[in-house]
């Protein structure tokens, strides 16, 4: 019996196959550094004078969630690529099922149903779905030459199903993060750049058409108008108590940081606690205020470096599935970085999206750790493979 379990377990995970000499240590180091920085900020927020009054930032809870997520990192690290490849559809299906269940068993907060209540923390299936989509796309694309329309349709459908389910929660921000993952993986899988460009332009034109047709809800238009107006600082200041509340505070605290920042824990965002979601979606504004341009640009550059290194490692992988997964994870981190920071800097309309490794939130941590573990594991987990790309010259 024990042997059977060991055997089954052995088919799923393996520590022996990780080549530590080829392990992406710089990525791990950067990720650990960013995580430590994030933990420090959350800790300072929890200790700020405004916290007891305005509540919300729970460092202890964050630490506990991190401890829960850590095994997930290692699980991802030691999962066998072959098992992953075989069971990608299963994992994806599980994610879709969870998404389907959300409307029925999910907990409703602020008129949105995104969470499933678990004993220790609430699970947000849409976060896990992103990983599921990466795995499934890699599975679908690893033997897909993307030559015919049908070849293109399959990965699109794979992405569209969870995207629509997430958008219906409603959580348009999270749903849209799947778009760059899809586009990036299609490209990495050999999709024609021209075709992707045409697709992108078509999407933009369709979006513009929908906007012009009046099908867009007026509140969504209002959000876009607020965003456009937010480029003018006076307009943004005028709308500070209305629709521009969040954007205004994110901009104010970021701008208040100046070149060198106000010092850790010395920011007005922490002093007042007025910045919504300052420990999750808007943590970059707090970093911006307290570390200034110097510190924040370092964080962004390190983040970019981590993504770049992941891509570099992915590029060196012979196994197409692994390469696509690692590449997908890199795009996942890149998309989160770009969207999150852009939203807080006003480059994109306000939408709720975490900054992985920095933001609190159990599901986000879980997904981040799983993604990072998978990427690091797969990038150093050289199993013998006879896949399509195994004999290609690079």
């Amino acid at each position, binding site marked *: 019996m024990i042997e059977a379990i060991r055997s089954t377990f052995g088919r799923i995970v393996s520590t022996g196959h990780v080549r530590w000499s080829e392990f992406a240590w710089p990525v791990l180091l950067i990720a650990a550094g960013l995580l430590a920085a994030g933990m420090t900020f959350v800790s300072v927020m929890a200790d700020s004078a405004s916290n007891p009054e305005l509540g919300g930032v729970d460092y202890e809870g964050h630490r506990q969630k991190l401890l829960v997520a850590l095994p997930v990192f290692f699980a991802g690290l030691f999962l066998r690529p072959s098992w992953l490849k075989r069971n990608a559809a299963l994992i994806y299906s599980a994610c879709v099922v969870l998404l389907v269940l959300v409307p029925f068993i999910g907990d409703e907060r602020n008129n949105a149903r995104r969470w499933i209540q678990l004993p220790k923390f609430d699970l947000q299936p849409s976060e896990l779905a992103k990983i599921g989509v990466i795995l499934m796309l890699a599975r679908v694309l690893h033997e897909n030459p993307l030559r015919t329309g049908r070849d293109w349709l399959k990965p699109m459908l794979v992405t569209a199903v969870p995207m629509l389910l997430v958008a219906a929660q409603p959580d348009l921000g999270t749903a849209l993060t799947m778009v760059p993952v899809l586009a990036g993986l299609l490209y990495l899988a050999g999709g024609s*750049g021209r075709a992707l460009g045409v697709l992108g332009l078509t999407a933009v034109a369709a979006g513009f058409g929908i906007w012009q047709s009046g099908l867009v809800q007026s509140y*969504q238009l209002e959000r876009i108008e607020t965003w456009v107006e937010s480029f003018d600082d006076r307009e943004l200041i005028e709308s500070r108590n209305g629709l521009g509340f969040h954007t205004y505070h994110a901009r104010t605290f970021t701008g208040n940081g100046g070149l060198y920042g106000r010092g850790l824990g010395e920011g007005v965002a922490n002093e007042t606690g007025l910045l919504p979601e300052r420990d999750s979606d808007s943590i970059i504004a707090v970093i911006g205020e307290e570390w200034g341009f110097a510190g924040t640009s370092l964080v962004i550059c390190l983040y970019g470096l981590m993504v770049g290194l992941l891509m570099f490692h992915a590029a060196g*992988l012979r196994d197409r599935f692994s390469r696509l997964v690692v590449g997908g994870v*890199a795009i996942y981190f890149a998309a989160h970085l770009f969207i999150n920071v852009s939203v807080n800097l006003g480059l994109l309309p306000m939408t709720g999206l975490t900054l992985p490794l920095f933001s609190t939130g159990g599901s986000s941590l879980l997904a981040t750790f799983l993604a990072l573990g998978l990427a690091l594991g797969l990038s150093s987990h050289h199993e013998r493979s006879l896949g399509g790309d195994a004999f290609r010259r690079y």
Partner: protein
Amino acid sequence: MLRRFLPLLALLALSVATLLARLWDIQVVQHDVWATEAANIVRSYGIEPYRRGAILDRDGEVIVRDEKRYVLEFIWRDFRRGHPLGQLAMLRSLALARPVGLDEARRSPVRAARGYTLLSPDDLERFSLGGELDADVDYVPAMAAESESGRREGARSARRRSRAGDMRFYIQRLLELTPREVKELGELVEEEDCGDLSFVQLAGLIKDESTQDILRRVERDVEVRDEQLTRLAQLVEWESTEGPAGEGDRLVELIEERRRAVDDETADALFRIALGFSPVRLNEANLEAIDLSWLRSALDWDRTRMGEWRRSRGTAFVNSTRAGFVIARSKPLREGVRDLGDQAAGDRFISALAHSFRADPSGWEARHPMPEDWRQVDRFQVLDGLAGRLAGAPFDEAQAQAGIFSFQDERLRDLGSRDEPMLLALLGDLLAAARPGESPEVYAALAGELVGLARNVRGEWQAEDAELVEALLGLMHDRFQRRVAEVLASSAGGTLEPGSVRVAAPWIERALETRRYVVRDRGARPKKVGQDPSIDLVLLVTRYREEFAGFRARAQTSRVAVATTVDSEQPVASKLIGKVRSPFLVDVLQQRAKAERLIDLQRKRRLPEEDAAEILALVDSTRRAGETVGGSGLEAWLDRELSGKSGYHEIQGLQDRVEGNRTPIYRGAQDGLDVTLTLDIDLQRAAEATLLDPGPFPPEGHTNLDGSTDLRCDERWSESPVGALVLATVEGDVLAAASVPIAPVDREGLSGAALAWLALTDGEALKAPDRTLTRPKAQPPGSVVKPLLAAYALQHLGLDPNEVLQVCDDDLPRGGTSPKKSSFAGYGQINCNYQYGHQEVDLHRALQKSCNVYFAALGERVYGPASMRDAYRSFGFGEPTGIRFDDDGLRSGLVDSYRMNPSGPLAAGAPVEGVNEVVRQFLGNGLAHADVNVMQVARAYAGLATGALPRMRLVRRVGDLEVPSERLDLGISSEHLATIHEALGSVVRKYGSAQDAWLTPDRIGFKLAAKTGSADYREGAVPPSGVPWAPIEDYNEKGMRKHTWLAGWFPAEEPRFVITVYVHDTSATASHSAAYVARKFLLTDAVQDLMAEPVPSGQGSAVEASAKRGRDR
């Protein structure tokens, strides 16, 4: 394969570069902007209210002052969380999905508390999924559905989960669980699987007590807290006796009313979020057409409650407040001419009307002190922005914005403004509808009134103005609602049925998203339930805050009358002291631009000195919330001295402190100056008490000198007296200045007999102006002017006091220029006051008897036109009394009716030849052509008593600054004064005209020199001769009613004080009315004590002083 990654890496690099560039832009380039904003977020400002100066009497005793008073407030959020009654009302409302009022919840609180605490978490869970709920007192059946999923869907739309969550919260509050115990309860339910245990059992497990003990404690607590509520209610001073009999029930009824108001406001807020405008902008029919089932469900209201809310909101637009806003907005700017301040009045009025309907009125008001020019107003509230808010058929924007009002007519817009004609062109149809069937002249007059209303910078509007504007607004509102109905109907697909117009789902969602915050916010707003609660009540709710959760005593500054008049909360001399008021609406509206400027300055990152100074100047010139200003009387006259300056301080955040951007502004509050009056509280009170109850007439035990009873007095005047009394020092310091009625009389409260009498009077008995300085009606001085004219004639016209000017006998033909046949003795047009005449009279006897014939002859023969005018003027008639000191034309509040009748011969600028012989006959007797106020008569007598005419002084000191006292030498020799004094001393003695009034030293304790006076006022009802107590039916309606006076000084030989009594509209002569009032006052303790006061050193006989001045000259 790297080939495929390279473009992605390049894209990544580009993205990072974009982010860094934007970061640089915000953090480095725009740093100043955002650093300023950040500093403002943590910077706050405080306004420290000043204390308005007190008003003190001559001895420094406080009459009125600012005091901290308490207001009892009710906070529904605290009550529902902390009081069992609130908790039970909430629990039952949540369970039954209808509002259960506090009164209903109070009927069976113990049973309800037991029923709900015996529920288990599993019961609530079942309820949340659509199952039944049995809480003993309330039973909610399971939701009817064909399948489990259908039931769950039904439960979801009925918000059962959310309601169950709230019910759990209130049950836990009812059980008084601490946060830690609540957490433990949650763990017991979730981890120990104890969800089937009742909340009481769970509380028992947590607290380690038996279930029965906990249940008993909850029940006892419910009872005790209810008793405490009754105890609180017993301490409330109820203004009315209406409502339930028990105090507890009345309090619950009151707070239930407040709770309903909170609910209404919550509904308003949610409606506004979803629809973008206030529900009061729609009438009831249009409100009913909109599907508001989401709102009903969000508030757990039933249809009845929803209907009540709709009714109250649907009729709220056109009310006096709204009319008041239009009028206030139509007034020109008080300070300078900016924006539309230079518009013509008619333009301003139309603009103010248009503003009431325009889109985003508050947005405009925040930026501009005046409404936008009506020519620019085309988009209207409700119709503007409704397009995106409705679900259903496409919204017809053109239909919504097509012309509705006449001011949208392009041709009219091109016309210049011509006030009334323009108003008629624009509002003609509305005016005609508001006042149907009138002539064009009437409409033009109405338009003129509206223009006048808009022109009037000072003062507020009258009820009839508001009525007219309300009618116009109502008609515009109706017209507007018809258009709204058309637009809604087209959106609903053609016909407008109740609930047929649906709001687009995202807007409902947006409203529902904020539901919790709105409920919390509105519930947390205090509602006033009582003013000036007793100190016991304040202590109760302050010390035992938890027991009286939901009640709060809040201190606020009030203007308090410390020295009150008889049986009233009004201060003594209330009409002279006046009242404070809130700033006029026009001031509040027009200072918004200043408030905006203040905010702009406060938000600046760096603050140069000139900006700091401007901040303080703006703080000084804008009224803070709750600040009072002088509204009338001395409170208004001395408003700038009584008002102080608010303190101001800036509280800086860490950022300002670290960066040292700006020097924090701090200025302490500067209290207003205290004002010390010349009035004496005791004397003033005595004067008011005397006037309020002047009778009985004649005084008890009184007989005439011949032993007969006085049958010529006026009983009815003493029952509803109208008159005034002034007591002053001969130096002009007013010690008492009282008039009645003290407060306006409500016709509603009068008996039938009183109303019957009132119908025969001039109606003054209902009104309460100050009558010591003002002169509501014609007010000739009558015979009290005789000594003054005599003194003038002795000094300036060579009158021989021993000469007999005319024989006063009814047997003799009447002399003078205009003789007439009469059975009365008389001279020319003037009858003598004694039918048979006084025979041969010299000056002394003429004054003693008040002989009209003598003074008619004096006026005609001795006086000429110029000298007669000069005589009146020299004694201060036609001139200000001096009470309104420091008059720079900007002060208001004190009204001194000193001018003569502008169409009379004594008016300033009237031709001197108008004072002809006949006029002089009248003026010699103080009749018909002269108008004086009571203070002027007191002043003239102070002059006559001392030979020097003082400026009357009501205010002795403002702060530390003494108000100067001035006296003007009349230039009358002491010898002539002595002649007059001797004659006036004899008036109250035997053979004098007031011999029967008991004003002799043996009756009042000191010698009084005085003169009585009566002047015909109007033809009216008088009692039959000799029957003062006759019923009204027996009155002679063709009789003559009079004003009567008594003016004099005391002590007679060494004048120190002057007294003037004025009796308005009486059938009796002065000796039988004013003399009795004077006697009653002079006998009061206050006057007797005054006479007992030692004479201040250096103050000898005024006549001696006058004689000395004469010698000096």
